[in-house]
């Protein structure tokens, strides 16, 4: 592939080309396995199909991973170009898109190298770019959770509360424990006292 510097991996074109290459490779590989199992004829039913399912599933996953990322790119670009979002949120979403592409490609690092689409050095650049993107997004981490818009009531989580007062929330939650209904607890007299 054409990637020469870490930031090249941010480009949607590079990301989509790499994901498409992986998906095409795995599809071709699955088709070859299926054809061999079928005695030279690729069929989509029967024993040959069943004995090729590992390769077929890998191909399907790669195909859908490509589609998922492509959709993410298109949605964010559409929202931005149609001015449904101002520059600030659009820029952060683009960073998330880039990170999603990089993370998805890292999942496929072995496949990228297996057929020679990317070299080991290019995969190392990919890993470096993930680190850079994560650092860039770090200041917005909590704000990005706020944008999901979950009220505390809905999350019902002592750890995930918006005000961050997590330890008080844990102790408040403990008040509901039936084990705390008495100071000595439910087992002391019937079980432990006779000892």
């Amino acid at each position, binding site marked *: 592939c054409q990637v020469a510097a870490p930031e090249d991996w941010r480009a949607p074109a590079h990301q989509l080309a790499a994901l498409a290459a992986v998906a095409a490779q795995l599809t071709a590989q699955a088709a070859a396995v299926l054809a061999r199992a079928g005695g030279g004829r*690729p069929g989509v039913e029967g024993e040959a199909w069943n004995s090729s399912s590992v390769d*077929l599933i890998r191909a399907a996953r790669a195909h859908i991973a490509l589609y998922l990322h492509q959709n993410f790119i298109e949605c964010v670009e559409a929202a931005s170009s149609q001015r449904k*979002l101002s520059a600030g949120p659009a820029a952060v979403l683009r960073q998330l898109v880039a990170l999603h592409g990089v993370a998805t490609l890292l999942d496929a690092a072995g496949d990228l190298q297996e057929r020679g689409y990317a070299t080991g050095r290019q995969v190392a650049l990919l890993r470096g770019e993930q680190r850079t993107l994560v*650092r860039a997004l*770090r200041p917005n981490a909590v704000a990005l959770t706020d944008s*999901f818009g979950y009220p505390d009531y809905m999350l019902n989580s002592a750890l995930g509360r918006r005000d*961050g007062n997590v330890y008080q929330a844990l102790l408040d*939650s403990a008040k509901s424990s039936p084990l705390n209904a008495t100071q000595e607890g439910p087992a002391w007299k019937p079980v432990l006292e006779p000892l």
Partner: protein
Amino acid sequence: NPVDDAAAERLKATFDSEELAAFLHDGVDKLQRREELVKLLQSQPWSDKTHRYFLTREQEYVGGLEAAVGIWQQMRGERLSMEDGITMRSLAYFPGGLELHIGMFIPTILGQGTPEQQAKWLPLCNRLQIIGTYAQTELGHGTFVRGLQTVAVYDEASKEFVVHSPSLESTKWWPGGMGKTATHVILMARLFVKGKDYGPHSFVVQIRDLATHLPLAGVSVGDIGPKMGFNGVDNGYLSLDHVRIPRDAMLMRFAQVTEEGRYIPPPPDNQKAAYATMVYVRATIVRDSGDFLSRAVTIATRYAAVRRQTATKLGEPELQVLDYDNVQQILLPLMSRAYALVFMGRSMMDMYHSFDSARARGDFSVLPELHALSSGLKALSTDIAATGIETARRQCGGHGYMLASGLPTLFNSYVQNCTWEGDNNVMYLQTARYLMKAAIAVQTGKPLTGSAKYLSDAARQPNAK
């Protein structure tokens, strides 16, 4: 902590999170309405979450049903919209015995019943005078619907069907209120008319007496035991011993059996039309995958921002866990996956609506592509979400193991999505079938369109095989 970390984090942000929230929820008014519904729910005893993590299974079952009925009554009493009801269900998130009544029983009657059958059943459904669920899966038969053994044999003399479970493995198993809550089921059974097997068809079968709620004669029904999660919804088993049901219990909008025992097959496009329901269900699964992963990421990220562990130098404040390289390298890619799924869910719902409009015009041209995508997306999105929720939980250290964190319940109630509505591996294989057909088309020089078009491009590369 020496500073209010939650507030400090929000000051660091480079964008307006409220603007993005409004965009993701289709407007500020939707968010405001949600806040109003939260207040309404917090004022009701049946939606109080204070003790939620201390409930026994039995309390969870009863509480889930109380919450479902509570929402139902609020909607009727306050004349709230269906959208409000769905939002309240999502906010309260206390799944109960009406889940399948609302989510599958009523839609199936609407989709597969004749106008007469709809007129008969829907008023009873809407007044909760009957509670329905689905009865498709059998102990020995899941995703492979054509393998179902339960039979419905038409008796021309009495003009009735005799429904029967012929073997142990044909015992219906349905974790959706069938054991203790439902009075009626949509039974999937092999239709036999004059000795001929016409394969699985749908029948409305009453299983419990409406006055006493006791099982009817010939019906063995009960709860098969606790599940990994979702325990507010009982886990039913059902077997039938030559139970007689009237002819109009067969849902006959498409295929029909006449009084004299003549089978009228469904029109050719019927099966294609039935895909619309399947695509809709899968679209909602994709949408929910983004929702559930977003919840987990929200919890883990907020906690990592206020949790501090270990000072790098003596006398300095402990570090925010979110500033550890390993933590942020896990949580932020997970955040990107959550956002990708949220956008995919929105697109998937748009795709469904677009297909539904085309279907109304008799245009089914996008069906193969949509079937392949909806199958694969169902599988990949639920895989990502289930794995991601557990990854988020692990980032919370020991506290993530507590139910009070919200994460174990989230995971336990979510992970079923990887196996229901088609096991994920089977779903991937459906996508693979489409891909293999595309690959064969490429080999024979046919041009490809749609999501697999890149295979044509790949085949044109100089070193392509």
